[in-house]
């Protein structure tokens, strides 16, 4: 609600201010043009123009005259869509400006700082940058003439000197708007305090990294320690100063996306892939309503306008201290994980009717693979779990590209005649592979498991960037794509049990060696949130007795059917070798652990219950009527078997989902897949939280900490972009991306 108000109120205002500032800059070319680190890094990207004190003073004047009641002018629709990116940046700038007016001392400090940056910057000292900026605006003019309709709004401020007059003509409106901004300022502050807070944090870090990059002239800077150092310098300024500089970056970023969108002449070059934290600071996060308007078409990089990085680091108090991960880089390991069903081309073509809403071009593999790889380059996840990876496409196109990007890949094709499969790729400089298991769910001796789905379970050892002697826990990464068939929840559960049993076995092997093991389970589970299959993963157990099989995944409501396949014990035959605890029954075959203990699990012990030796009455057993006069009866076997009593399956991994079923602060469902027959959340990243015990065990240190995630979108959001796949999202699934901290 507030977001909407702010949006409607501020949009025209920011547009005007944008024009104003640009035209002002045109009229007074003598004003200093400040270039922050970003442009240099870009090799001469979009110059950023900051309002001078003179300007802000004028604005201040306007503000003081503005006393008319609050009003919500309706923005012109056609411009709105086109200008989204810029408007966002300017909106932030505008608020920033107001803050500056109030605090001139900080302003001075800011100037000083930006000058410092400029002078420290070998590539772009002030005068040169100014020229670049001019060149830039002429470029914009040129492009604008090529694409007059789309860029009209941009053309006006950059090309037309008389525009300033136009703005003045509209002064009445401006006054109204300023009365609005006074109001908005308060609201905005509140909104920023709550929703936007995280955003600022991210931006702040972003800023630091960029500064660092400037100093080092390196295209990418991932080292936490270095960032931390540069942070230390920056923190010496006041917090207001930091905020300002950061917002400036946000603005610059928006401009960059804009310039990238322009057909840039040769000689300009832009970074191939934005680092995670660089790319995520788009201010548009504050305005969920923005996403209902179509954005630029031709630009893949603008996906970040729609899907926003959400920082969840609850104790990362960025406004006071540097990010936790950077303060103490030596005992933390942060990494990102992506799960992505990229829609195999064969499956797309086999189910063409699901994609009739898409243009031919959007469905062409060549276009899609380009966009998929671009998405990977944008985010550079440390671990990528892909589903529906078609083998020939993987071998010919994706694998070489992934290797180029520094990934080591494991691929498992589905069984039978299926052409696609799963892949897990990890950055070779961040992890060492300890073990790999390729899972096939088809079992020839089991009627239930007659489907061709597969999974991959990897054990990865994080490589410590800083520590000699510091050893992080290994991470077990499982990736799978469960059966789609909405009616066969029984099969899905059995397939999932195989994955869980394999994870359990990997974790146990780690524990045998004396180390903890964290777990990431991700993939396309073809099941909806909070439905039984999900419950099994998230709560650790599922009571299934009599459950209709379709309900397990909840993909479709088949309750209208007369006949339901229902779940009864045993869910899977014991020949599968997996217990109701989703563990391999044979794991507990007598083995001597490091402790020297002979361990047997329940199921193993039960197997021996009616063995020959056990059915003979012990010679020394005194006969006490009513106490020791029982006779072994193999037929009572069922009596105490788990199936008879429990009708429950469970697992011992403490797993939580990265994503909640709803878009934050709304009641709209978040979806991970969409095609013409529906939309739902079926992809997940689950991670081990290590909350094994309560109370006493509270201070256990293991478990992964979720630091952030790339937000999902609602079905309406996606349909406003013509559904999936579309120009921004090349699959009928969205990528899931999460950042974790270990240690």
């Amino acid at each position, binding site marked *: 609600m507030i977001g909407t108000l702010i949006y409607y109120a501020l949009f025209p205002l920011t547009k005007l201010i944008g024009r104003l500032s640009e035209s002002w800059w045109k009229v007074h070319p003598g004003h200093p043009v400040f270039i922050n680190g970003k442009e240099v890094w870009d090799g001469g990207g979009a110059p950023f123009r900051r309002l001078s004190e003179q300007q802000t003073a004028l604005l201040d004047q306007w503000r003081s005259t503005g006393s008319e009641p609050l009003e919500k002018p309706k923005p012109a629709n056609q411009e709105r869509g086109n200008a989204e990116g810029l408007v966002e940046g300017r909106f932030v700038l505008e608020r920033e400006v107001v803050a500056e007016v109030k605090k001139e001392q900080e302003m001075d400090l800011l100037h000083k700082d930006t000058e410092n940056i400029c002078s420290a910057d070998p590539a772009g000292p002030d005068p040169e940058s100014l020229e670049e900026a001019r060149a830039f605006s002429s470029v914009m003019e040129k492009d604008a003439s090529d694409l007059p309709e789309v860029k009209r709004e941009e053309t006006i401020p950059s090309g037309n000197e008389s525009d300033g007059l136009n703005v003045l003509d509209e002064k009445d409106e401006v006054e109204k708007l300023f009365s609005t901004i006074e109001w908005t300022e308060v609201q905005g502050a509140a909104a920023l305090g709550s929703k936007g807070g995280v955003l600022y944090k991210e931006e702040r870090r972003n800023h630091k990294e960029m500064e660092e990059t400037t100093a080092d002239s390196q295209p990418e800077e991932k080292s936490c320690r270095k960032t931390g150092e540069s942070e230390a310098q920056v923190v010496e300024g006041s917090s207001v100063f930091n905020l300002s500089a950061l917002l400036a970056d946000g603005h610059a970023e928006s401009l960059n996306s804009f310039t990238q969108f322009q057909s840039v002449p040769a000689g300009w070059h832009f970074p191939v892939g934005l680092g995670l934290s660089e790319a995520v600071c788009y201010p548009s996060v504050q305005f969920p309503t923005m996403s209902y308007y179509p954005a630029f078409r031709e630009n893949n990089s603008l996906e970040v306008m729609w899907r926003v990085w959400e920082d969840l680091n609850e104790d990362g108090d960025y406004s006071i201290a540097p990010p936790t991960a950077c303060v103490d880089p030596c005992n933390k390991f942060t990494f990102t994980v992506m799960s992505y069903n990229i829609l195999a081309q064969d499956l797309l073509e086999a189910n063409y009717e699901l994609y009739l809403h898409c243009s031919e071009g959007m469905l062409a593999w060549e276009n899609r693979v380009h966009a998929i790889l671009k998405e990977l380059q944008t985010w550079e996840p440390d671990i990528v779990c892909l589903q529906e990876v078609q083998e020939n496409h993987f071998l010919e196109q994706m694998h070489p590209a992934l290797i180029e990007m520094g990934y080591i890949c494991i691929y498992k094709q589905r069984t039978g005649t299926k052409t696609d499969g799963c892949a897990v790729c990890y950055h070779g400089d961040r992890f060492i592979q300890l073990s790999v298991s390729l899972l096939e769910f088809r079992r020839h001796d089991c009627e239930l498991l007659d489907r061709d789905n597969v999974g991959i379970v990897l054990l990865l050892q994080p490589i410590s960037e800083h520590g000699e002697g510091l050893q992080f826990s290994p991470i077990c990464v499982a990736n799978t794509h469960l059966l789609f068939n909405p009616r066969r929840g029984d099969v899905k559960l059995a397939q999932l049990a195989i994955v869980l049993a394999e994870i359990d076995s990997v974790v146990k092997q780690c524990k045998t060696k004396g180390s903890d093991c964290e777990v990431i389970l991700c993939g396309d589970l073809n099941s909806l949130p909070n439905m039984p299959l999900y419950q099994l993963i998230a709560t650790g157990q599922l009571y299934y007795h009599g459950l209709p099989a379709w309900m397990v995944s909840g993909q479709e409501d088949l309750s209208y059917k007369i006949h339901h396949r229902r779940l009864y014990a045993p869910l899977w035959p014991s020949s599968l070798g997996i217990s109701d605890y989703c563990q391999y029954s044979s794991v507990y075959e007598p083995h001597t652990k490091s402790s020297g203990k002979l*361990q*047997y699990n*329940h199921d193993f012990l039960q197997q021996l*219950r009616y063995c020959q*030796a*056990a059915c003979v009455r012990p010679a020394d*057993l005194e006969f006490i009527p009513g106490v*020791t006069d029982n006779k*072994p009866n193999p037929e009572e076997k069922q009596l*105490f078997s788990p199936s008879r009593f429990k009708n429950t399956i469970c697992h011992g991994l403490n797993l939580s989902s990265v994503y909640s079923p709803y878009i934050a602060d709304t009641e709209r469902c978040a979806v991970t897949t969409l095609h013409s027959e529906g939309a739902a959340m079926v992809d997940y990243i689950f991670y081990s939280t290590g909350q094994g015990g309560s109370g006493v065990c509270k201070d256990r240190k293991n478990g992964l900490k979720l630091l952030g995630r790339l937000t999902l979108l609602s079905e309406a959001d996606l349909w406003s972009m013509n559904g999936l796949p579309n120009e921004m999202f090349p699959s009928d699934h969205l990528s899931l991306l999460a950042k974790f901290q270990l240690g």
Partner: protein
Amino acid sequence: MNNKFDALKDDDSGDHDQDNGSPKDSEKEKTEDEEKDQNTTKRKPVVPGAGEHPLQYNYTFWYSRRTPGRPASTQSYEQNIKQIGSFASVEQFWRFYSHMIRPGDLTGHSDFHLFKEGIKPMWEDDANKSGGKWIIRLRKGLASRCWENLILAMLGEQFMVGEEICGAVVSVRFQEDIISIWNKTASDQATTARIRDTLRRVLNLPPNTIMEYKTHTDSIKAWEDFHGLVNASGGR
């Protein structure tokens, strides 16, 4: 000397500690000596048979039952508790277990005890004296399954608390059944927490099940207070 035993036998308060199947009397340690001799001579040391699956520890089944009606005043707890047999392997365990009645089918005021060989199911045993137990009270109908799950977890070393586990008891009472698991060191909170968590997992308990930890010293004190026998025990 036999006061406590007598009192115990007279006790009808079904939900006191001794009902968990472990009435105590320090006195009996002396009187027991003959019986101990008797047991050791009677029973050969148990070893796993060829090809059997050895257990980490040998265990002994015990059975106790309060005599219906007025118990003979001369009977001691010690006399009232019976060794059923010891075993060293999974197969041997099943031999005994399969020939025993399920706890849920026991009649009267009875207990099964399963303790490591050499540890008596008594508070005063050296292994138990600074220990305690987790107590789970069960509505009727659950005891057989829970008991089986509990002892299988214990025999299979699922509790992962080193040597801490002493044994387990199932107590059949009039309106409820009680299962408990005893460990050596009541003050070791990490151990007791781990035991509790394992219990929750292996017993598959209803979510609202109440679990209570009680040290044996508290049990003894409560028992003595209840029976007004502080002086008697003080004189031991």
